[in-house]
């Protein structure tokens, strides 16, 4: 029985180990329907492992993955009917022509939309009669996106789909993704190294580091409430009390830099009363700076 009111993705205690290495550790993540969720993380953070587990392509060592109300470990086929997936590396049969690949994939989806497929073929300028093996990397990525969205999935999962693509193809690819987002109440989960892409598409952001989710918040809220504080310490003094919500800090001579989440004006007076600081300066952060501070902070605490 499929629960239509269930979140698009609900990961509970998801864990994956490779020998002694834990790639994903007790990951809890809920992505509501209609959300465009950008998953950020440095190399080896566990983004692809997480996505492969929720796509039923990798065994789960502990916890469970529920996608569109379906437990992935129990009936992955039911879930795959309603999900479109674009991986980082594309292994579409190289001997198939573009039209054959479309016919092949179409046969598995009762919801296939021929009109949308033709529209995307035009938009992406894909040659129907050319073999997949003869297509450029960008063309294969666009074909992969076409195959993933032409059946009008309820959930689109993109695993670093734009890595290695030139800016023009990237733009076309993003247009295709935006087209999907704009068509009704679709949920999109995408992982990317490109912070610009995440900032452009996502309304929610998660940062994954060493298999753990450091943050999961709406993008506007995250950008609006995470601030960089620059405090000047009194001569010969060191920071005494870290304010609550500090993600990362760095002291260089008298300059004390801190990145704090859920910033409020009270925090400045608290910082001044608990530490020997002369002045405090508050600045906004870009998503890129914020991402780096989260990762550096996690490394510091590790």
């Amino acid at each position: 029985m499929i629960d239509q009111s269930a979140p698009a993705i609900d990961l509970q205690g998801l864990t994956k180990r490779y020998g002694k290495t834990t790639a994903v550790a007790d990951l809890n993540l809920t992505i509501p329907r209609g959300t465009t969720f950008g998953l950020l993380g440095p190399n080896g953070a566990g983004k692809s492992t997480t996505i492969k587990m929720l796509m039923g392509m990798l065994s789960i060592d502990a916890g469970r993955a529920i996608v569109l109300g379906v437990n992935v470990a129990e009936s992955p086929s039911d879930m795959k009917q309603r999900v479109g997936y674009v991986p980082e590396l594309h292994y579409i049969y190289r001997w198939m022509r573009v039209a054959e690949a479309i016919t092949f994939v179409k046969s598995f989806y009762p919801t296939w939309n021929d009109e949308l497929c033709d529209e995307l073929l035009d938009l992406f300028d894909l040659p129907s009669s050319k073999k997949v093996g003869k297509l450029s990397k960008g063309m294969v990525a666009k074909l992969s996106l076409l195959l993933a969205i032409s059946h009008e999935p309820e959930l689109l999962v993109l695993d670093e789909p734009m890595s290695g693509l030139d800016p023009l193809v990237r733009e076309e690819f993003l247009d295709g993704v935006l087209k999907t987002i704009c068509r009704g109440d679709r949920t999109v989960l995408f992982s990317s190294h490109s912070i610009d892409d995440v900032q452009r598409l996502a309304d929610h952001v998660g940062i994954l580091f060493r298999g753990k989710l450091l943050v999961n918040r709406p993008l506007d809220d995250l950008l609006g409430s995470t601030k960089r504080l620059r405090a000047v310490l009194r001569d010969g003094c060191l920071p005494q009390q870290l304010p609550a919500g500090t993600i990362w800090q760095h002291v260089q001579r008298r300059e004390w830099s801190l990145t704090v989440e859920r910033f409020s004006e009270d925090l400045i007076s608290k910082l001044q009363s608990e530490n020997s600081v002369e002045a405090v300066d508050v600045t906004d952060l870009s998503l890129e700076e914020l991402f780096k501070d989260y990762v550096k902070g996690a490394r510091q605490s590790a």
Partner: protein
Amino acid sequence: MNALFWKDVRINRFPLIVVAVFLIVPYAIMAAIPFETGMSYWPRLFIQGSAFGFAGCYISLALLGGCIIATERADRSAEFLAYLPPSKRQILTSKGILLVGTAVVMTGWNLTATALGLALMDPSEMPGTSAEMMGAMAGFATIGIAAAGTGWFASSMFASTGGPVGLALLLPIVISIMLSASSSLLGWPNEDWLQHAIFIACGTLGVTLFILGCVNYLRRVEP
């Protein structure tokens, strides 16, 4: 299901070409080259053709069985299929139909040729009874079954085709050598039963390994 089967046929084009070659070439050779065997032309063509046909059946089923799952893992196209809706059961059924279907066609073709040869043969030319000859030929089919089952099982585990094909070719030979050695050294099975023992061992192992290959493929989450 049709799309999956069509895809499997296309991916296994080379082993299937080998199958087609071994269905025709043994008979073409027998038709073209006159061997002195004491048999008249047509019975000789069908009976000797089917004997060579069974040898071809062993080679081509080893090739097909060894390639049928591992090819897609080797070029990683199995990962593409893994995120499409067909279940592992459907994917396996399509491949199973192709392998079992090919085995049935090859065995049926060669047994029909044997039966035809026996029907056309003058009783004075016959080295044994018709039933004995049909039984011996059917026994040769079990070698093909062993090759197909071994290839299938190894293919469900390996990520390249070389190993599974090699193992599939090797197993019937190993079985024959081991049972022959046992027969001459230990006296078991006795010489009268040696051929039957080889056929029974090949058939049993082939079917068992085919089932184990299915279980292994279905249990594994990774493509």
